[in-house]
């Protein structure tokens, strides 16, 4: 039954492998030898099957502590302490002996890691918005759907009664909180301290039950014991009371009403969409409404959509169902407004990142940045891989000698991994220090207050993930390549030309440059779009206009106007009911000649005085402006969009009704931008109002400071208690585009880093190619090649890769950027020259980087390069 001699029976391999794994190394050889000998004996005696069975039995007998226990002094074959310290020694020597190479490597990795860390910090901050509330998964914001079809708007605001009725009628709702921003009070006084208070709001008492804002003092379940209670944030309280205990202190608002501080809350975190410094009870606002509306209570006021309502649902509730039930609540308690879905619920955590209709908002930019961050890390990794594989040629001899002495593949692999680890360790250290130092600038740039503290475990996790994924990506291939050389070939110089894996390396360089080209395209297009927005004619003149609120001055408007107009430096004065840059109010309460019954659109009403059109240089398309006469009160001016939407032909002289007040259209003003350029121009209607709260003073620019001083002096005569606050329209306008400008700056910054890293890699690669080809170049020169010819030879390969990169990157960049531009109602077209320019820049950069090394090599005296061995 014995097996034929040519194929001697082998004992079970699995058993052997298990034993090799388990048994103490110093006993292994002897035991395995004995087992095998016994096996051979048994095969002869009882056949292979029996022998195998027996082998397992015998082998299992050795799984006992006696045979498993390692001898202390016996070195482990795989990872020995001595070898590891040797690896580090060699790695360190390699670093020190090749300073340029090491510097390029560490610098490239460091910049990649710094950018990666910075971007991830930003992304984490944006994604973490509003997620610090323990209940955030069950909290929803009530959205109000307005209009149908084309005219549909989704408002983030809601009316007050729905919170009360929905909470009472729908069992899934555990809590309902209304929040209303307040500008009812301006200046608060405590003893001799007068402070203009920003960020005030009215909230329902359940506010602190629903949200996790930390209360330092006061009662969470009953935060407002009385109607005149007020809660302050810690930093607001400090402004009024310093170190004193604020609870129980009295604040006087605008010299009229007094409030007792009933609680203290920690400052609202930066990553909260809800931001207040001072909170009043909603009951107080309800009282104000009842007074203003002759007894109509807040819960009967279905017409004003000025509240933000949050609902906390129980864990099992579906928010779609609740929204459906709320529609029925509306019908039961108010009336059927003819809409099946008047409400929608938006999860709290989506409030910051998504638009009200659920489409992408900020999340789009977060995604772009995340991709950019990963790309930059990838570029940095590719750099490392490229340089390490290029260096493989130089190290081939070292590897071969090691192999001949008896190094196993695994040991060599370990050696190169450890070298990478060392480089990474240095780069990470440098990156952490740099990121820490850059934090203040970065915060300035992003307008956030992120911190890079080593105590934060999150940051460690993040840095860990970044470093390890990069490490894994960039260490395995070079280590595998280096450890797999065949020693004899390598010693004989079989790895000619220094290109051991040419295709692979080319792919890497190409992809690296493809990303860089895409980033350059992005930079150019974003820059052009921002420039376009800045230069875009808004349709009115916003330069050098100072804006402030009239307050008590309104009573004496005529003399104020005259005084101002007589002051030097002032070119014009006008007032309006809303901020011209960002008109917020809309209404559908309109009627006009020839209106069809179902025709309805939103229009922005704005009350202005007679000088409004002239001060802002708003041109009329037809008709005339207001003259400041009594009959103006029944005159309207529409913008072109409003005329178009209403479908009125020859509008001047036609009837128009706004808020139930009938009048005539006297003029049509040309369209102007009264909102962000992201939006299309919407219908607007100007009505006459001789005195309005928003005051605009047009200055000549040179004397602006003087004018402001004069205005403030005049203003103080009327509003002695309150501090004077003003803004320049162009500044406010720039503020509207702050996020775009930040995006632009960040993008510039990131693409510069990406290009820099790519260049470093290319430079390193060019250096090594040049070095490896020294002899070839020498011989060519001896044979009569020109310097230009040799440079061309050395550069050709790289430029080819870059050209392919451009071909790949351009369509992708074009697609992505077009999608980004879609977000703007007024935008530039992504034109071919932008991409051509990006490609040209990439080629030039690559050419400069590579040719310096190539020229150096080409100029070398061939005698020198050929003589050395």
């Amino acid at each position, binding site marked *: 039954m014995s097996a034929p001699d040519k194929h001697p029976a082998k004992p079970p391999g699995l058993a052997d492998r298990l034993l090799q794994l388990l048994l103490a190394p110093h006993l292994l050889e002897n035991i395995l030898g004995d087992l095998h000998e016994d096996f051979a004996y048994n095969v002869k005696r009882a056949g292979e099957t029996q022998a195998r069975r027996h082998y397992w039995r015998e082998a299992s*007998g050795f799984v006992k502590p006696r045979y498993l226990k390692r001898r202390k002094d016996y070195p482990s074959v795989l990872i020995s302490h001595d070898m590891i310290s040797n690896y580090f020694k060699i790695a360190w020597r390699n670093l020190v002996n090749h300073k340029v190479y090491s510097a390029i490597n560490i610098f490239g990795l460091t910049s990649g890691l710094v950018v990666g860390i910075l971007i991830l910090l930003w992304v984490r901050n944006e994604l973490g918005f509003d997620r610090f509330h323990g209940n955030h998964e069950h909290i929803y914001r009530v959205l109000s759907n307005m209009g149908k079809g084309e005219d549909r708007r989704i408002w983030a605001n809601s009316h007050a009664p729905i919170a009360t009725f929905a909470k009472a009628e729908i069992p899934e709702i555990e809590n309902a909180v209304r929040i209303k921003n307040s500008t009812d009070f301006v200046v608060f006084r405590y003893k001799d301290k007068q402070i203009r208070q920003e960020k005030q709001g009215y909230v329902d008492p359940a506010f602190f039950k629903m949200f996790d804002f930390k209360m330092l003092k006061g009662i969470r379940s009953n935060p407002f014991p009385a109607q005149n209670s007020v809660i302050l944030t810690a930093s607001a309280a400090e402004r009024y009371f310093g170190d004193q205990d604020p609870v129980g202190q009295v604040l006087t608002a605008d010299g009229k009403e007094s409030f007792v501080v009933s609680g203290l809350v920690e400052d609202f975190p930066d990553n909260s969409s809800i931001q207040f410094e001072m909170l009043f009870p909603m009951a107080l606002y309800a009282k104000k409404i009842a007074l203003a509306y002759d007894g109509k209570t807040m819960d009967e006021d279905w017409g004003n959509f000025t509240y933000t309502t949050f609902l906390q649902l129980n864990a099992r509730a579906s928010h779609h169902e609740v929204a459906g039930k709320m529609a029925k609540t509306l019908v039961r308690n108010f009336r059927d407004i003819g809409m099946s879905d008047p409400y929608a619920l938006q999860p709290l955590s989506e409030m910051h990142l998504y638009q009200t209709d659920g489409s992408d908002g900020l999340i789009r930019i977060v995604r772009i940045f995340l991709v950019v961050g990963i790309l930059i890390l990838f570029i940095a990794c590719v750099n490392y891989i490229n340089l390490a594989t290029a260096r493989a040629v130089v190290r081939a001899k070292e590897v071969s000698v090691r192999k001949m002495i008896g190094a196993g593949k695994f040991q060599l692999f370990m050696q190169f991994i450890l070298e990478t680890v060392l480089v990474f360790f240095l780069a990470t250290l440098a990156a952490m220090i740099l990121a820490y130092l850059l934090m203040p600038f970065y915060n300035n740039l992003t307008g956030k207050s992120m911190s890079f503290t080593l105590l934060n475990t999150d940051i460690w996790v993040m840095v860990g993930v970044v470093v390890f994924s990069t490490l894994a990506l960039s260490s395995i291939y070079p280590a595998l390549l280096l450890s797999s050389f065949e020693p004899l070939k390598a010693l004989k110089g079989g790895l000619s030309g220094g290109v051991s894996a040419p295709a692979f390396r080319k792919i890497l360089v190409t992809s690296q440059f493809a990303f860089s080209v895409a980033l350059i395209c992005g930079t150019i297009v974003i820059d052009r779009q921002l420039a376009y927005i800045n230069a875009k004619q808004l349709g009115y003149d916003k330069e050098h206009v100072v804006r402030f609120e009239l307050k008590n001055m309104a009573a004496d408007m005529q003399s104020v106007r005259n005084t101002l107009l007589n002051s030097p430096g002032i070119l014009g004065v006008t007032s309006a009911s809303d901020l011209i840059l960002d008109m917020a109010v809309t209404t559908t309460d309109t009627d006009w000649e020839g209106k069809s019954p179902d025709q309805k659109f939103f229009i922005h009403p704005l009350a202005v005085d007679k000088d409004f059109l002239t001060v802002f240089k708003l041109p009329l398309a037809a008709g005339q402006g207001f003259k400041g006469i009594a009959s103006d009160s029944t005159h309207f001016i529409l913008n072109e969009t409003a005329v178009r939407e209403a479908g009125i032909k020859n509008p001047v002289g036609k009837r128009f009704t706004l808020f139930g007040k009938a009048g005539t259209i006297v003029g049509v003003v040309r369209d102007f931008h009264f909102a962000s350029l992201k939006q299309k121009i919407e219908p607007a209607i100007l009505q006459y109002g001789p005195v309005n709260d928003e005051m605009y003073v047009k200055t000549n620019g040179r004397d602006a400071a003087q004018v402001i001083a004069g205005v403030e002096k005049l203003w103080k005569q009327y509003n002695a208690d309150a501090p004077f606050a003003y803004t320049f329209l162009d500044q406010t306008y720039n503020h509207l585009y702050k996020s775009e400008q930040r995006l632009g700056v960040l993008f510039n910054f990131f693409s510069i880093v990406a290009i820099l890293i790519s260049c470093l890699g290319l430079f390193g690669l060019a250096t090594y190619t040049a070095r490896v080809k020294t002899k070839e170049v020498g011989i060519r020169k001896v044979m009569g090649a020109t310097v230009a010819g040799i440079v061309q030879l050395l550069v050709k390969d790289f430029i080819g890769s870059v050209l392919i990169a451009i071909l790949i990157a351009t369509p992708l960049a074009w697609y992505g950027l077009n999608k980004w531009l879609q977000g703007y109602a007024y935008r530039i077209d992504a034109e071919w020259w932008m991409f051509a320019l990006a490609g040209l820049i990439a080629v030039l950069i690559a050419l400069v980087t590579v040719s310096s090394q190539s020229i150096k090599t080409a100029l070398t005296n061939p005698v020198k390069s050929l003589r050395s061995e």
Partner: protein
Amino acid sequence: MNRTYLGEFEEIVLLTVAVMYGQAYGVVLMHEIAEQTGRSVKLNQVHSALQRLEEKGMVKSEVGGATSERGGRRKRLYTVTTHGERTLQQIKEVRESFWAKLANSFKPAIGL
């Protein structure tokens, strides 16, 4: 009587090592013992006995040659030390003195 204690199996292994005169190693010891005593012996028992004997200083070992049957692995050859020889000697003497006494009583008692 200050000699080290030896177990019964250890004693047999030691004796076997002694009779093999420097050619003793794991497998052959196992086969030899099995043959001579007729009991089934496992390889790990032999190895552990050898280890214990070596710890007690009764055998010493050196690395020997490899064979293809062993997959190129070297043998560990055992020889008995002087201490081991002396111990075997002592055991034998103790037993013999007992046997001497026992020998008389096993003979049938026949009166004159």
